[in-house]
């Protein structure tokens, strides 16, 4: 035993001389449990970004440490503590949903370790926090974009179907309603569903009887696609609009013909890469997975890593978390995979949104909205 | 009369298990309830103990009605019972089994037990001593720390009786106490019941098929058939009664 330990110490010493330092970045993601689907897709981007850029400017290697939180808060807190205290990470990426990300931030804030969230869009997430950052836009921005678009198309009344079990959905619904009413529109029907629901026949029947100009569905693709299908089944053919939650291939597979003309906002569109970084990343993605249809969660995941890496590169000591955090908040015109990013003092990203629609089984770019 | 069953009827759905049956048991009497299966004997027990509610009629214990009382309240008034197939608390020691009988006699509160206040220790000591006394009386004190189910059948019966005695009863209901015992054990049990009646001032009401046992022990018997009483009187007269023979005893074994 003693001998082994000596050997190990020797090896470690050797390594520190011959190779550059290894710096760890943590990722807390739901890789199993009910949220596994999204966690896995997001982590794909983080992992690939790490493979593409495994080293810092100064030659130090960046090692990703992934911990699975099963989508559970106790595990999230424990995992975050482990990353900081046992693995000594300099920054953390994750943890998908706003409520779990809040648990990550709660632990990291005390330890002054920066967190970059990929898709946690809840407005309140970063407020009053010093070390919380994100690369996605906030619900309020997205809601505004959609409301303004709807008004510009001449829609006066809207029905909103939101998912009460998802913070994302409720936040987005609220932001939309606020912006839409302010711009002179009227919400004529509000229905709440629960993620995991499969049967929306009753819901769409209600919407049909309310007869709105426009349907807003701030949902994820499993529910949105079913609602689209089931709406079509009963002859409800109103324009439908969703947030970024539906922007993926599965939505197309699931929705089929029923989502023809269905619109949504997104961070990013693989068919229209906004930056050179996007193009390169998509090429690498295709090479690795054999498919081109990259989810925007994957792009955002990659950007959390890239922003973190860029911030580390800007610091004299790439392990100085406070400096990294400062530099993250100093991200200006960053060419990310998902688009051009600016991160402000409060850690929120200001970035463009794109409006797209589903056409012939593809996501087609319609327009870009800048903040 | 310590127990008075007054015109009790019990219906289960459409079936009448007991029909207008009345009887009384005098203090310190040993009274037998016999009859074929399904005659309503165990049902009668369950009505007295409050497990069933009589459809009609009433049961009086020490001239007070038991109507509306919960089973555990009836036990606390002094009516204890044993079960047809022994039902000891399997995971507990013999002593703990008997201590359950003292449950309502130990006077300390939940808070006192959590905080281990002096009264807890005092009361526990008191009921343990009493429980050991009962075990000694029945000659099974050396098994006090044994798991109840590790004992032999006869000893388990004794534990069950000890447990019933622990509730400090005036009336003891025994449901087929001799079932599954050999003649020697049966005789020992009869002696025990006889003796316990004197030492604990007990009145005993029992169900039994073993006519020899009944004959030996009971002062009076009531024969039930299809929920109706067909005979009440001395057991020696019962076995000569033609109706009882026809309904219950048959002519296969007579000695």
């Amino acid at each position, binding site marked *: 035993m003693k001998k082994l330990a000596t050997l190990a110490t020797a090896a470690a010493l050797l390594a520190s001389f011959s190779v550059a330092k290894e710096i760890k970045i943590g990722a807390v993601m739901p*890789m*199993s*449990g*009910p*949220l*596994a*689907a999204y*966690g*896995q*897709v997001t982590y794909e981007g983080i992992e690939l970004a790490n493979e593409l850029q495994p080293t810092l400017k100064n030659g130090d290697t960046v090692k990703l440490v992934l911990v699975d939180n099963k989508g559970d808060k106790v595990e999230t807190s424990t995992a975050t503590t482990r990353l900081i205290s046992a693995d000594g990470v300099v920054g953390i990426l994750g943890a998908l949903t706003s409520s779990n990300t809040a648990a990550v931030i709660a632990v990291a804030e005390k330890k002054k370790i920066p967190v970059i969230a990929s898709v946690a869009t809840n407005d309140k997430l970063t407020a009053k926090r010093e070390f919380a950052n994100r690369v996605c836009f906030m619900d309020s921005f997205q809601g505004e974009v959609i409301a303004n678009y709807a008004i510009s198309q001449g829609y006066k009344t809207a029905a909103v179907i939101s998912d*009460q079990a998802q913070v994302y959905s409720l936040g987005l619904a609220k932001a939309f309603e606020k912006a839409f009413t302010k711009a002179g529109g009227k919400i004529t029907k509000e*229905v*709440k*569903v*629960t993620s*995991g*629901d*499969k*049967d929306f*026949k*009753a*819901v769409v*029947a*209600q919407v049909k*009887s309310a007869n709105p100009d426009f349907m807003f569905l701030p949902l994820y*693709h*499993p529910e949105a*696609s*079913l609602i689209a*299908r089931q709406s079509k*089944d*009963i*002859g409800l053919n109103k324009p439908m609009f969703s947030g970024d939650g539906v922007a993926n291939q*599965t939505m197309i*597979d*699931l929705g*089929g013909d029923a989502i023809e003309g269905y619109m949504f906002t997104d961070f990013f569109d693989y068919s229209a890469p906004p930056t050179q970084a996007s193009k390169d990343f998509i090429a690498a993605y295709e090479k690795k997975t054999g498919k081109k249809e990259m989810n925007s969660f994957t792009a955002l995941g990659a950007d959390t890593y890239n922003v973190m890496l860029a911030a580390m590169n800007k610091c004299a000591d790439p392990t100085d978390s406070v400096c990294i955090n400062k530099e993250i908040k100093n991200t200006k015109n960053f060419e990310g995979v998902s688009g051009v990013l600016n991160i402000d003092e409060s850690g929120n990203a200001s970035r463009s949104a794109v409006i797209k629609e589903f056409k012939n089984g593809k996501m087609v770019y319609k327009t870009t909205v800048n903040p | 009369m310590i127990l008075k069953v007054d015109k009790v009827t019990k219906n289960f759905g459409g079936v009448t298990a007991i029909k207008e049956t009345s009887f009384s048991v005098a203090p310190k009497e040993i009274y037998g309830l016999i009859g074929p299966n399904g005659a309503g004997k165990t049902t009668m027990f369950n009505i007295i103990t409050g497990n069933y509610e009589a459809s009609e009629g009433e049961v009086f214990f020490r001239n007070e009605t038991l109507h509306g009382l919960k089973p555990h309240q009836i036990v606390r008034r002094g009516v204890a019972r044993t079960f047809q197939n022994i039902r000891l608390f399997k995971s507990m020691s013999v002593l703990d089994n008997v201590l359950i009988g003292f449950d309502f006699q130990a006077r300390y509160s939940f808070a006192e037990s959590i905080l281990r206040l002096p009264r807890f220790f005092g009361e526990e000591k008191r009921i343990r001593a009493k429980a050991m006394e009962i075990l000694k009386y029945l000659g099974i004190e050396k098994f006090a720390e044994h798991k109840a189910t590790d004992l032999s059948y006869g000893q388990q019966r004794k534990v069950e009786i000890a447990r019933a005695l622990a509730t400090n009863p005036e009336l003891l209901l025994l449901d087929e106490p001799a079932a599954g015992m050999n003649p020697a054990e049966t005789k020992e049990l009869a002696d025990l019941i006889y003796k316990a009646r004197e030492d604990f001032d007990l009145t005993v009401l029992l169900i039994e098929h073993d006519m020899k046992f009944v004959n030996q022990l009971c002062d009076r018997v009531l024969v039930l058939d299809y929920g109706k009483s067909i005979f009440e009187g001395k057991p020696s007269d019962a076995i000569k009664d033609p109706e009882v023979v026809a309904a219950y005893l048959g002519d296969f074994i007579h000695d």
Partner: protein
Amino acid sequence: MDFLTFMQQMVNGFSLGSMYALIAIGYTMVYGVLRLINFAHGDIMMVGAFLGYFGIAVLDLPFAAAALLAVVGSATLGMLTDKIAYKPLRNAPKISLLITAIGISFFLENAFNVFFGGVPRAFPVPDYMSHILNLGGLVFSVSSLLVPIVTLILLGGILWVLFKTKYGMAIRALAFDVNTVNLMGIDANRIIMIVFGMGSALAAVGGVFWALNYPTVEPMMGVLIGLKAFAAAVVGGIGSVTGAVLGGFIIGFTEVVVIAFMPELGGYKDAFAFVFLILVLLFKPTGILGYDFEKSRF
């Protein structure tokens, strides 16, 4: 709400309820013979749906063949779980059995998650199944019309087996007394295995229908559906197959009707199955068509 909408809701409820019913039958039968709340049953349904998906999307089988694969595969899996995880525990405390059931459930969910990923996959629905029918204003897809029909046919089949064949008698006999069934010269373990096979096959049918109507398959899909189907089995009276179907319909109708008539309570939809369940149990502690196992055992 006009009559047509009302009828439409009824049809929807019938269709949804049928799927719960198909899954509930498996719960009720296994509970009947083993007194086991088979928490893995919902996951067997998930496997059934996945097998259907693999059959069509990977093996390129026609729908009917894929469905057959799902049914046979799930039945085999059901019997296998019995053999590996439940049979060795026949004489163990019931709670140990329950924990292994939870273990099997976790295993299936997580193994599918690790090996096939958690991302929902679109179930390739054949065109003739998603064809929309319009009968005097009532609209539904072929598949949602097919569910209740198949359910009732299968219910008839199960009842025939249970009440007209000697194997069915043995299953009913098992519900009360395992050891005595052995004394009849019957291998009780084999009968129990048949029960698992039948229940799992029905769950697979339910799973495939679920995938047809709400065309996704993912590893966690069995959790909530399974729980609600179990609630359905208890509402109907656990141990009774007809009760399970009845319970399935009741839960299905409740869900649909509540949202249709009281949309503001939509958020409580998932809770309704349980509120209903609690109410039924308080007034009839054994469910609508159930009997008291603890009492009638002897």
